[in-house]
């Protein structure tokens, strides 16, 4: 089900890759439609819907009032009637105004109905900091969503995965939360990670939800991460390769389901684990990874694990503070060095 690498590719940024995937599904299935704030003429604040209004018209690309409970709830109702909405929550930070629809309804209706009602929808939302947007506009919060059962949580790190996971999410009969990082959209108005543009397979490109990728194999230490941090980890790993440190980088791609096997397989080989997570450190992703290892076999760890995450502080505005909180390459490097005893 995952990407066939033989397919021809074209180079797109992540935003464009998402849009293309959405457009292809809209072509394929008239039940697919998009709604959210500024998804129409504006094309999505983070360019996740650019051009869709022109292509599909206002009946299938709906700008909404600033009523997240109202319109996400409407998407849920529409999904229970067989439509396949893609609804955007502009920043994940706004989940607090509409979480009841998300976790008590979107995520539970299928279960409460004993499987009789399906809720096939995608809730897409922008995550991440690094550009001084402050404590209410810079969070990742994937741990918050992953803790609550009934929704898949997908977190791509690059254009090809964004496209392939978006396609998978739209075709999934379950609610899927699709969290894209602003820093890899390739936005013209934000510093771009160089990997925010990359090859995207043409044709029917689907990335299976639940399978991690290993963009860099290695033998000395396992770096488990996701989203923008994948690129920081890869940059650091490349740099340290010159010093004879061979770091493996695992890109989780989704955390519900999470590819526990891939993590355990890698750590069993390397014995060293660094978790890099742009979400808050405690009670989140890094803990869950640690627990799955500790449940499996704590002796695969040759040293205490390292967590490079946001240290339980709201994201500060001022750049020096924000970058002290974020999982920067410098912090990742320090953790790898510590793991490898250098």
């Amino acid at each position: 089900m995952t990407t066939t690498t033989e397919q021809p590719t074209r180079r797109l940024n992540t935003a464009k890759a998402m849009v293309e995937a959405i457009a292809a599904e809209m072509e394929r299935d008239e039940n697919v439609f998009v709604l959210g704030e500024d998804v129409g003429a504006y094309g999505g604040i983070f360019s996740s819907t650019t051009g869709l209004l022109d292509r599909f018209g206002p009946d299938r690309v709906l700008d909404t009032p600033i009523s997240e409970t109202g319109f996400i709830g409407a998407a849920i109702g529409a999904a229970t009637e067989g439509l396949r909405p893609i609804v955007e929550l502009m920043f994940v930070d706004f989940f607090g105004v509409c979480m009841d629809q998300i976790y008590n309804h979107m995520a539970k209706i299928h279960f409460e109905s004993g499987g009789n009602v399906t809720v096939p929808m995608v809730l897409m939302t922008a995550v991440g900091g690094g550009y001084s947007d402050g404590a209410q506009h810079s969070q990742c919060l994937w741990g918050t969503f992953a803790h609550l059962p009934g929704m898949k949580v997908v977190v791509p790190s690059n254009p090809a995965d964004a496209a392939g996971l978006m396609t998978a999410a739209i075709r999934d009969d379950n609610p899927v939360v699709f969290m894209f990082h602003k820093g890899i959209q390739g936005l013209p108005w934000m510093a771009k990670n160089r990997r925010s543009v990359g090859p995207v397979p043409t044709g029917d490109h689907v990335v299976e939800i639940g399978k991690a990728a290993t963009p860099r194999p290695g033998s000395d230490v396992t770096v488990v991460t996701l989203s923008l941090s994948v690129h920081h980890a890869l940059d650091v790993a490349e740099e340290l390769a010159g010093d004879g440190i061979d770091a493996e980088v695992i890109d989780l791609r989704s955390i519900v389901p999470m590819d526990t096997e891939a993590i355990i397989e890698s750590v069993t080989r390397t014995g060293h684990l660094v978790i890099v997570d742009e979400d808050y450190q405690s009670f989140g992703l890094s803990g869950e990874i640690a627990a799955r290892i500790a449940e499996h076999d704590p002796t695969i760890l040759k040293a205490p694990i390292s967590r490079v995450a946001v240290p339980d502080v709201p994201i500060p505005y001022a750049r020096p503070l924000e970058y002290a909180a974020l999982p920067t390459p410098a912090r990742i490097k320090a953790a790898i060095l510590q793991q490898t005893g250098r």
Partner: protein
Amino acid sequence: MSASMEAQVRRDLFDQMVLIRTYEEAVLREYHADKKPAFDIGAGLIPGEMHLSAGQEPVAAGVCAHLTTDDAVTATHRPHHFAIAHGVDLQAMTAEIFGRVDGLGKGRGGHMHLFDPATHFSCSGIIAEGYPPAAGQALAFKRRGTDRVAVAVTGEGAANQGAFHETLNLAALWKLPVVFIVEDNDWGISVPRSASTSVADNAARAASYGMPGVRVEDNAVEAVYAAAGEAVERARNGGGPSLIEVHTLRLWGHFEGDAQGYRADLEGVPGKDPIPTYEAVLLEQGVIDDAAVAASRKNASEVVEAAIAFAKASAEPDPATVLDHVFA
């Protein structure tokens, strides 16, 4: 108005109300049957919170008389009257309330979480949060070019929740085929409407959204029927949403076990029961006779007892299946 109403419609409204009441009385009986002498909410054949709708039959009967099972209804934590009036399979619904495998949700949902795709019925235990999905169902109906409508129900207490406001605005803006019902039974648990709502009338709030709003007084089933008829018609014809508030009656406690110590009006309550009132009117006007009343009750009782028997005969879910149905 009642004079001009067809006798059959009036008889149907009465029968519907009798059926609902008979159901609620049976659930009441079963719910308490094995919680004696000491009430324990978690014990017995029907455990958990139980919000019964006795007294509010006129709302469900009057509204659902205009619907088919192609239309959608989203109800509240107090959902039975609407489920019954909308035609949800009584046996599957009852089995769900008993937590059995033949229940609507195979025992996963329970009394506040009844989902019936066959009749597009659903409900939610979270205040006012059934409103937004109803708008979405209406959106789906509209996009598909059908004349189906969605009905969304909430209480007067819930009308002060943000979801109420957001959904009314959205539905009006998009001219969605929804009928919003507010059941004003004067109470949100122990809080009277005067302590929760800054205005006397939620129907008047419809003006904030540019939609028609009416308030039906006195729990009058025929007035509900008339108002709902107009609103459903408007929605079917592309005229957009409406709001109907009905001044109804919470005949019993908020939930079972509620001693209602806070309720000053308690003494007058039984006298306001809408069913004897309506029965007297119909008898007086010759629309029904004593035999019809007896037949109505007998039929209701048979149907309800069959549903209860069905539920009791259904198996309890196997604990080994606890992880089923989280994902499709």
